[in-house]
């Protein structure tokens, strides 16, 4: 029981972590919290669903194509919607991302209806026995995919020119700009990356909770909670925070109540913001002025 709960908690946490990473990527680069992140992922998951059911593409191919399309969608969105207001007050940018939320959410409902669909999983569902615990390969698969994405991001940020520029920009935008980093390009790239990573999250979560126009709302809330636990400005922090949320939620659901899982996330958000506003892992609270 314990091992099973931990593995499924880690799987759930990996899903949250992918969305959390997308949120933190954009926040680090632009100081904007993209409230539409989950809805964009949901929208792309519907597109993937069309590719599977109507174009009858093989599932592994869809898992490659859909994130690329998700990245393209986010890139276009950044270019035509976000960039014109990037110099305005931050509240306006936030309102625009909420506008994007409404647009993506209801366009999906409008096109594909409001009923839940069963989304095929890349991995078999029958549990296998591993050292005495019955573990679903789906959970292991989710964890593996998420780890692969994280490894990819790590390599990108550590070893490529663009990644280094993005790290520099998130440390000190002004200084990076003076060193010749193109800030607008950094914002553009961060949206693109986040769009791709978010789509992977949608594809992984849809087989667990059914594909539905509202499926990402509570995932987004958990990703927020995890990202806040991690301090909202650190990619590894967001991953660990989301993993903790996933495990805590699974244990809470397993031993206490499944009805109030979202309430639990809300409590985490309020408590962390009150007592450890810079996240669990930071030593000192750094204030940007």
């Amino acid at each position, binding site marked *: 029981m314990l091992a099973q709960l931990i593995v499924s908690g880690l799987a759930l946490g990996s899903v949250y972590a992918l969305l959390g990473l997308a949120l933190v990527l954009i926040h680090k680069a632009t*100081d904007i*919290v993209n*409230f539409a992140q989950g809805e964009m992922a949901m929208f792309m998951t519907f597109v993937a669903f069309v590719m599977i059911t109507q174009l009858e593409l093989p599932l592994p191919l869809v898992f490659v194509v859909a994130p690329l399309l998700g990245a393209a969608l986010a890139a276009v969105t950044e270019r035509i*919607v976000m960039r*014109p*207001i990037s110099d*305005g007050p*931050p*509240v*306006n940018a*936030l*309102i*625009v991302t*909420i*506008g*994007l*939320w*409404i*647009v993506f*959410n*209801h*366009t999906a*409902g*409008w096109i594909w209806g409001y009923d839940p669909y069963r989304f095929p999983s890349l991995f078999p569902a029958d549990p296998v026995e591993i050292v005495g615990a019955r573990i679903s390969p789906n959970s292991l698969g989710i964890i593996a995919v998420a780890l692969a994405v994280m490894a990819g991001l790590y390599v990108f940020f550590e070893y490529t020119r663009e990644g280094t520029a993005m790290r520099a920009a998130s440390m000190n935008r002004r200084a990076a700009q003076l060193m010749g980093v193109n800030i607008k390009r950094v914002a553009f790239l961060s949206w693109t990356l986040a769009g791709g990573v978010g789509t992977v999250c949608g594809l992984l979560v849809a087989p667990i909770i059914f594909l539905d126009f*509202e499926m990402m*709302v*509570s995932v*987004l*809330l958990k990703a*927020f*909670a995890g990202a*806040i636990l991690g301090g*909202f400005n650190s990619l590894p922090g967001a991953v660990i925070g989301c993993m903790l949320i996933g495990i805590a939620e699974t244990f809470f659901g397993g031993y206490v109540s499944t*009805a*109030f899982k*979202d*309430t639990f*996330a*809300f409590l985490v*958000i*309020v408590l962390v*913001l*009150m*007592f450890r*506003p810079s996240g669990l892992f930071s030593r000192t609270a750094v*204030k940007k*002025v």
Partner: protein
Amino acid sequence: MTLWLRKNWIPVALLAAGLVLPNLVEHYGNFILASILVYSLVSLSLTILIGFAGQISIGHAGFWALGAYGSALVVTELGAPFLVGVLVGGIVAALFGAVVALPALRVQGHYLAIATLGFALFVQQVLFEWESLTGGRQGLFVPRPEIFGYELTDDYAYVYLMLVIVVLLTWMTENFRRSHTGRALMALKMSTVAAEVAGINRARHIIIAFMLSAFYTGISGALYAHLIGFLSTETFTFTTSLSFLTMAVIGGLGSYVGALLGAIYLTMAPEVFREFKDAQMVVYGLTLILCMQFLPGGLASLPERLRSLRRRRT
């Protein structure tokens, strides 16, 4: 006198329209007017929160629900008079507003918006699960408003009662804007650091703004409950919160005129866009984005904007 009128023609005209209009329209028209008044309070509450304090809420349906259920339960279960119910609705919402804003003690920026998202989902879930109190998916019947023993059976009389409440709260808002707290909030919005250096306690003022905003929304929810006569948890979804935000932004966050225009937009849009049906929310979202891009001051700033465009051309 004429000078006073020239300076204050907008509120005078609006008040006159409010007094005359209910006589000119049929029963359904009065229902529409009542809806506009209900929404205008929510819009006003968001004007306080976003326009004055610079904080976003995407969970106002939660406060609205607390006001609605608070008032409905106080009236039906405890037999309290209608006006007491409305006040209780507002106060319950305000108390929760303080809880949602508590993180303001420590955090800067837009983390509070995330807390409001969690709050909205939390309220929705509790209302749905707590069947013995809220009726769960069966819903809850709410009696018509009653004032000093008279039941306001038709919307015509109710509109006038609402008008009194809305005018009162609008007047309060205008005074609040000019009060010490109101000015402090705007100073914080312009530059948090400068305001704090001048001795303004940021957290306290933001919590006050949240409480006041939640109070208005709670009152609005209570008035709505007695107008519709039936509460179901499906009314208080996340979509409702987002529609509220859209309405307030499109109307304009600067003043009560914007709040009223936003309320008119939210009430009339379903009538106008009826053929769009499912796409109606898409239209809301698009108008919200376009509004931020091209008319950040909302509909209320349209005359000003047109004037400046014309001036530029000549």
